[in-house]
């Protein structure tokens, strides 16, 4: 049984069909990548799983419940964490307090939450800036902060939207290391990225989206060799 199973997902905005019958399944414990040319509907897909947009048709089964059209906070509490293409950190809060926001709705004690937060910040090499305001840290650090902040909710599935965008090579290494070790600890990842080298490095399987449908799936090498995928990138 897959952890996440999406069937026949459709979404239009106005007249424009953005998602046209997406099928996707993510197995417990895997790291799956989603790639595709601009405008393929990748971010829209995340926004629908996350509950920001409603669906027009189709189902999203996560841990055997159909979570389509749930509210955003309910999806989050049910075990899906996510990051955004442009990191949405709480600018005027300290890095540590950013980390503690999820603890508001958790039963853990404050001390326990702080301990966990500091541990994650260390892993993300953000320990040194934990008392800085989030607005003061670099763009790459913001992306890392957003990622480890999501981990505070202890999600089963983490959606990463362009995690490598605008972040320097050293921090990318940190990020990749974190994803790997969390994956070994049992976390499942679904990530959108156009940086194929990193995707190949991390992902077991890759799904290719183009023009609102999935056109291919397989290991990174299989996908790269697939003529249909190259055709999609070349345009019509």
């Amino acid at each position, binding site marked *: 049984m897959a952890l996440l199973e999406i069937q026949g997902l459709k979404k239009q905005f106005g007249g424009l069909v953005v998602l046209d019958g997406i099928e996707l399944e993510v197995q417990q414990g895997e790291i799956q990548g989603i790639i595709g040319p601009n405008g393929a509907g990748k971010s829209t897909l995340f926004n629908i799983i996350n509950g920001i947009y409603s669906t027009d048709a189709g189902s999203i089964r996560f841990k055997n419940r159909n979570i389509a059209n749930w509210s955003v906070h309910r999806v989050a509490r049910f075990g899906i964490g996510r990051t955004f293409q442009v990191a949405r950190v709480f600018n005027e809060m300290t890095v540590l307090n950013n980390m503690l926001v999820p603890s508001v709705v958790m039963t853990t004690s404050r001390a326990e939450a702080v301990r966990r937060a500091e541990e994650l910040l260390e892993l993300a090499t953000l320990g040194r800036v934990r008392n800085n305001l989030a607005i003061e840290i670099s763009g790459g650090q913001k992306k890392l902060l957003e990622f480890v902040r999501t981990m505070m909710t202890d999600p089963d599935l983490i959606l990463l939207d362009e995690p490598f*965008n605008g972040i320097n090579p050293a921090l990318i290494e940190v990020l990749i290391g974190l994803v790997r070790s969390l994956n070994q600890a049992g976390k499942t990842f679904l990530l959108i990225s156009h940086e194929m080298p990193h995707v190949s490095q991390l992902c077991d399987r890759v799904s290719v989206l183009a023009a609102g449908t999935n056109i291919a799936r397989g290991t990174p090498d299989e996908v790269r060799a697939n003529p249909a995928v190259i055709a999609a990138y070349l345009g019509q």
Partner: protein
Amino acid sequence: MGLEVKNIVAGYTREVPILNGVNLTAQDGRVTVILGPNGAGKSTLLKTIYGYLTPQEGEVLHDGKRIQDLKPNQMLGEGIAYLLQGHSVFPRMTVEENLELGGWIMRGDQKRMQTALDFVYARFPRLREKRSFLAGILSGGEQRMLEIARLTMTGPRTILLDEPSVGLMPSLVDEVYEEISKLKDERYTILMVDQNVRKSMSIADYVYALALGENRYEGPREEMEKKLDDIVREWI
């Protein structure tokens, strides 16, 4: 002469430059196409040329004149027009008003305005038919026609196009490239950023491929066409 970009370094924040020293030349009367994966810095390059971003280093020359210190609203006066990515018609104004705004910088000269309008209507008879319609109720393809027509109102020498076919229904894409190739026949200098590799290649004279804010490949169309599969394979 045309448009020359020399060793440009630019970005939204100082710490993470998107462009790391890009060089290119858009030859007079030719179509120059910029290809590259998401995040390569293609749109950022156009924005920098047009004065939305100030380069940290490097120069932008138009017909030999330095233009990187000018503001966006001064560019049309320098003979450079810019098609923004996405929709840019004024939806609650008529087609004709949209065109008149295209000629805003020659607003004092009624005669020149009328000549320009006549010229544009001759080129785009469909716009003449719908001159008194609100631009917002035109179809997606017609809106794009209007945007392109609006670009030519002041008779600029150089036109920058950012993803001219993105967000359009597939059936309309051909029309757009037909219009662009007409502009090419009229000897406009065109610098175009495009995801639709095959289509843009069909009208290109010279092609640049960027990667991570740097020049990756360049060459005349024929030469680049041979390498196309390899170039695209690098993106996936």
